């Protein structure tokens, strides 16, 4: 088994270094400088990290210079003085402008701008496009991935749920793998942080968010070039839900603790000077906690993808039989670490959400460590 595995890696290495040669042969013809390939890789990484309006699997340049994209166009839904729906194939991957309902739209760096019939885009001094942006509700690649992940989760866990009824309370198949994780989240995340009395209420959210993040992180490691959890809008949405649930299920004690952190430990005239500083900090903490949550997930996934893609890009920069396999192995090692990070980030997000819910459900003890609150 092992020798076959090593053989496969060696084959892959040779293939990759050969393809590296091919790229170099192609790229050297127009300008022949190393900078070009570097900027190309940088642009490629930038492009990959962003959401896109079509589900492209790969692209290549034909000998006559024509760019060929292999993938599926996705529907574009715009709100611009009425609903505009058209296929993203109209943009031809940003190369042409699209016309819908008398308006013209252009695609630049993953964003849709309103433009005129010639497709002119105005830029300010810093290079930002100043054209008007319609509100974009397109079914983008990330939305598609979320739907796929959601369907997968629904199928996986409802089949797990059904297997209990069929098999007398014992899971079968993949459920044997997922049930311990569900129990772990219940017994080692929700129960100790929220408490025996109220943890049940939060379980569905914690389970959903854990598997949602984990699965999307894992999809991010596939060669499909998906980066859902490394998107700020996604992590913002997830953290916002945590924030809303925390504060809408907060007990009276939680709110009292927020505006009166010292309680009866001090007379009121002593509290005034302290509270001028303490209460704003507490209130700020309300926002900072979920904000840290959203930035942590976003930054970790984004960073992972950048490192991984940079290492893969290095293969094309080294263009040698030593450097390219080396960066391949490095990329391989980082991928393994990323598998761990994928799980870890899902765990951390769930754990911290659970911890915040725990703070919101506190009822009598005000003795929890303040350090934990600012994780």
């Amino acid at each position, binding site marked *: 088994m092992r020798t076959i595995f090593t053989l496969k890696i060696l084959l892959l290495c040779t293939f990759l270094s050969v393809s590296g040669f091919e790229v170099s042969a192609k790229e050297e013809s127009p300008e022949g400088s190393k900078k070009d390939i570097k900027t190309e890789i940088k642009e490629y990484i930038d492009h990959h990290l962003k959401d896109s309006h079509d589900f492209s699997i790969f692209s290549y340049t034909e000998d006559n210079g024509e760019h060929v994209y292999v993938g599926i166009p996705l529907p574009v839904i715009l709100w611009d003085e009425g609903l505009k729906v058209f296929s993203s194939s109209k943009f031809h991957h940003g190369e042409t402008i699209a016309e819908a309902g008398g308006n013209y739209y252009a695609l630049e760096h993953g964003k849709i701008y309103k433009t005129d019939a010639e497709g002119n885009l105005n830029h300010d001094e810093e290079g930002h496009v100043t054209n008007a942006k319609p509100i974009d509700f397109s079914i983008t690649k*990330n939305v598609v991935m979320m739907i796929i992940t959601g369907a997968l989760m629904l199928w996986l866990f409802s089949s797990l749920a059904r297997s209990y009824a069929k098999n007398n309370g014992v899971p079968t198949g993949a459920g044997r793998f997922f049930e311990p994780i569900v129990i772990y989240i219940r017994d080692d995340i929700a129960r100790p942080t929220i408490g025996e009395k109220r943890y049940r209420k939060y379980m569905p959210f914690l389970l959903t968010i854990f598997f949602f993040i984990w699965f999307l992180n894992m999809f991010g490691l596939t060669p499909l070039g998906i980066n859902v959890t490394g998107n700020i809008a996604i992590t913002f949405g997830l953290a916002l839900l945590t924030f809303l649930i925390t504060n809408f299920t907060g007990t009276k004690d939680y709110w009292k603790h927020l505006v009166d952190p010292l309680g009866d430990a001090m007379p009121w005239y002593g509290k005034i000077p302290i509270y001028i500083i303490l209460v704003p900090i507490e209130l700020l903490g309300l926002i900072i906690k979920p904000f840290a949550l959203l930035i942590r997930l976003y930054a970790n996934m984004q960073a992972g993808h950048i490192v991984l893609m940079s290492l893969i890009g290095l293969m094309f920069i080294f263009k040698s039989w030593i450097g390219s396999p080396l960066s391949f192995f490095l990329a391989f090692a980082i991928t393994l670490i990323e598998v761990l990070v994928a799980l870890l980030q899902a765990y951390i997000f769930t754990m911290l959400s659970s911890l915040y819910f725990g703070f919101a459900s506190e009822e009598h003890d005000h003795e929890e460590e303040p350090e934990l609150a600012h994780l």
Partner: protein
Amino acid sequence: MEKLINDFSFGLFVWQTLLFLILLYLLYRFAWKPILNAINDREEGIKNALAAAEDAKKEMQNVTADSEKLLQEARGEREAMLKEAREIREKMVADARDQAKQEGDKLIAQAKATIESEKKAAVAEIKSQVADLSVQIAEKILKDQLANKDKQLKLVDDMLGDIKLN
């Protein structure tokens, strides 16, 4: 920060929130609720089974203790019965011995009395027979003695000689 805000897509955020909430509801309805219930039920089942086993063990122990006690009692009872039986036996034997002795004594006493009376009767008989025999012997001797004249004379002489001596 500016890059972050620039990267933020409102549409994606809306889709994400919407899809996540739908997913949350569907999973809650079709997956988490039955899964957590099933796990809970199973755990309760295990807990109950363990408690039942513990109870059964205690019950077993009680039963064993009871039977042990019963056995002890039975053993004690047997002991007592045996003891009683032994006593009764001894008493019976002693009674029988006493009675036999009494009976024997009585018989012996009777026998003694009978022997005494028989003896007396025999002695009386012997006495009377001796008297008869003595008379007969004396008669015969006298007849013999007084058969001839010499002898009669001699007798008279002897008797006269005796008297003289006196």
